[in-house]
C-alpha cells in the first residue's frame, strides 16, 4: 500500500514537470504552429544560469527569478534572430531548425558550464513529509512543484481565454494574414509566444533540477516525455497538457515500479502511438483536426 502510494506520488511530481514542459511546447505550438525541440536545452541553459548564481553565493530565489528572466530573454532572442528568417516558409523548416538549435545549445553549454554532473539545490528540503508515523514520498519541493505548475496553467488559461493580448496571440497563430489585416502586430505576438514558452520551459527545468543532479543532457528525456504529454493532452490545450503530463508521469512511474525501469521509454512511445492512432487530436483538443 505504501509502495503504491509512494510510486503514485513520485509519478505525480514527475508528471507535473512533464506537464510544465508540455505547456511550453503547447504555447509555442499555439502561437506559431511549430514544435520546439530546442525547448529542453533552452531550459537547461537557464537552469545553469541559476546554478551559477547560486554558486556565487546568492539566494535560491534570486537564482530562480534570474533563470525565468533569462528564459524570457532567450526565448525572445531566439525567435527574433534564429526562427524569424524561416517563418512563413514551410513549418517543417522551423522544426528542423529547432533540432539544430538543440545540438548547438548543448555543445555551447558543455563548453561554458562543463560536462560534470552537479547537484542543484532545492529550497524546501529533500526529506519526505511524515504523516502519522510513516514518511510519504512527497517533499516540500514536490508540493511546490505541483502548485507552481497549476498556477502557471491557470495564468496561461486566463491569458489565452480572457485577455485581449491572448486573443491577439491566438489570432496571429491561427491566421496571420487576417490578423495582420485586423491590426494585430503578428511579429510581436510570435516573439511574445516564444518568450512566454521559454519562461515556462525554464520553470520546468528548475523544477526537475531541484534536489537532484544536473548536467547538459539532463533535460533530454524530458523533451521526449513532454512531447508525448503534449500530444496526449492535445497540442492545442494548456489544460490538456497538464492532464497529459500527469497521466504520463503516473503511467511511467507505475511501469518503472511494477514492470521494470527498462521499459519506461518503450511505454512512453507506446502511449504516443496509441494516442496518435486512436485520438490524433489528443484527449482535450478543442478544435477538430486541422487539414493543411
Amino acid at each position, binding site marked *: 500500500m505504501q509502495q503504491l502510494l509512494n510510486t503514485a506520488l513520485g509519478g505525480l511530481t514527475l508528471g507535473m514537470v512533464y506537464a510544465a514542459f508540455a505547456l511550453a511546447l503547447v504555447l509555442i505550438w499555439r502561437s506559431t504552429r511549430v514544435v520546439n525541440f530546442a525547448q529542453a536545452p533552452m531550459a537547461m541553459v537557464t537552469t545553469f544560469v541559476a546554478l551559477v548564481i547560486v554558486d556565487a553565493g546568492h539566494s535560491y530565489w534570486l537564482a530562480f527569478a534570474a533563470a525565468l528572466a533569462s528564459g524570457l530573454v532567450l526565448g525572445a532572442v531566439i525567435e527574433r534572430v534564429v526562427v524569424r528568417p524561416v517563418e512563413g516558409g514551410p513549418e517543417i523548416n522551423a522544426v528542423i531548425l529547432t533540432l539544430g538549435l538543440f545540438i548547438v545549445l548543448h555543445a555551447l553549454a558543455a563548453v561554458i558550464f562543463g560536462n560534470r554532473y552537479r547537484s542543484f539545490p532545492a529550497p524546501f528540503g529533500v526529506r519526505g513529509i511524515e504523516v502519522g508515523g510513516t514518511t510519504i514520498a512527497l517533499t516540500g519541493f514536490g508540493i511546490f512543484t505541483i502548485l507552481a505548475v497549476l498556477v502557471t496553467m491557470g495564468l496561461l488559461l486566463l491569458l489565452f481565454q480572457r485577455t485581449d493580448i491572448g486573443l491577439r496571440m491566438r489570432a496571429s497563430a491561427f491566421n496571420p494574414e487576417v490578423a495582420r489585416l485586423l491590426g494585430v502586430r503578428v511579429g510581436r505576438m510570435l516573439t511574445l509566444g516564444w518568450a512566454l514558452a521559454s519562461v515556462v520551459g525554464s520553470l520546468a527545468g528548475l523544477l526537475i533540477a531541484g534536489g537532484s543532479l544536473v548536467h547538459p543532457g539532463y533535460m533530454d528525456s524530458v523533451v521526449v516525455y513532454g512531447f508525448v504529454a503534449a500530444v496526449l493532452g492535445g497540442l492545442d490545450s494548456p489544460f490538456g497538457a497538464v492532464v497529459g503530463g500527469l497521466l504520463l508521469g503516473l503511467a511511467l512511474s507505475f511501469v518503472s515500479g511494477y*514492470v521494470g*525501469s527498462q521499459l519506461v521509454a518503450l511505454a512512453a512511445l507506446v502511449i504516443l502511438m496509441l494516442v496518435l492512432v486512436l485520438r490524433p487530436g489528443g484527449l482535450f483538443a478543442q478544435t477538430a483536426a486541422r487539414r493543411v
Partner: protein
Amino acid sequence: MRRRLHRPTTLVAAATAGVLLLGACGAGGRDDDGGGGDGGDGGGGATAPGVTEDSIKIGAHFPLTGVAAPGYNEIPTGAKAYFDYVNAQGGVHGRQIEYVVRDDGYNPTNTSSVTNELVLEEEIFAMVGGLGTPTHSAVVDFLNDEGVPDFFVSSGSLQWGDDPEAYPYTFGWQPDYEIEGKIIGQYVAENMPDAKVGLFLQDDDFGDDAEKGVRQFLDDQVVAAERYTSGNTDVGPQIAGLQAAGADLVLSFNTPSYTALSQLVALRLGYEPQWFYTNVGSDADLVGSLLSRFSEGAVEGGSSSLDGVMTTEYIPGVDQPDDPWVQLWQKVWDEHGEKGKLTNYRVYGMSHAYAFVQALQAAGEDLTRDGIVEAMEEVGADLEGPQLAPFRYSSDSHLGISGMRVVEIQDGAGEDLTPVLITDIGDAEIVEDDSGQDGDAPPENGVPEAP
C-alpha cells in the same frame, strides 16, 4: 509483485534508440590528447603497429562527458600522469609511452567509432583500460578480430576473462562483480544472518553477475531485487519497492551517480536501511560532492556523507595516505598530474597503468602483440602491485584481481571489517589471502622491473 521480463534487451534498445537519438546529438567536445603524427610501424626490431624504436602508442576509451563521467573521467588523468612519470624516467625498454584517450560518453555507438579511430587511424599497439561494460562489449569482438591487445578493461564484467579462448587478447583487471557478490554474500550470511536483504542492481551484466555471486550465499535472505536502467535518473519506484518488501539491508551494485540518487530517494521516502555499496559506487568524496548541496543539513556534505555505509576495497585509496603505494601515487600526481587533487579514480588509473608498464616489461624488448599476451599468461599471476590480492591471469583465465576486503566507511575512510579474502568465479571457496600483496611496497623508483 514485480515481475521482471526476461532480458528484453533488443526491444529496449530499439525503443530507447529513438529517445536517445536527441541526447546523443548534443554534448560534443572530444578530448584530443596526444594524437601526434608518428603512428605506424617504425624501424628497429619491433614490427607491431604503434611501436617504434622509441615509442609505443596506446589508446583508451572513457566517458569524459555525460551521465557516467563524474569520477570516471578522472581515471585517464591518473593513468596519463603515471605514464608521464615512467616516460620521465626513460620509458620502458627505451620507448616513451604515448597515451591517446577518446571520449565515448558511455555510449556504445560512440565506443565503436572511437575504437575504430584508435585502431585504424591512430594505429595503437594496445587498448588499455577502456571503461564500461556496455561500452566495451561493443568493441571487444573487433579488438580480438584485429588482434589488438585489450588490457585491463575498466569494468568487473566476467566476459573479459572467463573464456580466454573466445577473447584471447582481452584481460580484465579489477575484481569481477561475481566474486565481489560472493564475498559480500558470505560476509552478510555469516555476520548478519537475520537481515532482510534487498538488492539494488544496475540492469546489465554488472547487476546480473553480482546477483549471481550474492545469491550463492544469501538466496534465502533476499526479500527483493530491484533493477534500475542506467540513464533513467528516477529510481524512486525501485527504492520504494525495496522499502515495501521490508528490506533492512540493501546491497547496491550501481555507479556513483546512482549512489547519490538512491540516497536522495531514500531521504524522500524516509527509508533508512543499512546500505552496502559495491566498491564501484562507494567513492565517499565523489558521492559527498554530489550530495553536498542539499539543503537544511538533510544530507551531510563532503566525505562523511556515506558514514556507516559498508563497501569493499581491492586497492589502497587516498583515505590511506600512509600506504607506500598511495605515497607513490601522490608523488606521481604532484610531479605529472593536472590541476586538482589526487582522487581514488586517479589512483585507479595509475594502478592499472602500473600493471600495463609491468606487462610491457614482461614482454621484453622485442615487443609484439602476441608476445605481450603470452607474457601476461605466463607471469601475470605473480605480478606485484598496489592490488591487495594477486591477479588470476593464466592461459585458462584472464580475470583480474582475485579478492578484496570488506570495510565500513567512517569519516570518508574505510575501516577493515575482514582481512583480504580471495576466491574465483563459480564454486571456488572464499579463503584468506596469504600472498602478502596487502602490505607490500613499490620499488624505490616507482617503476616496476620485469618479473
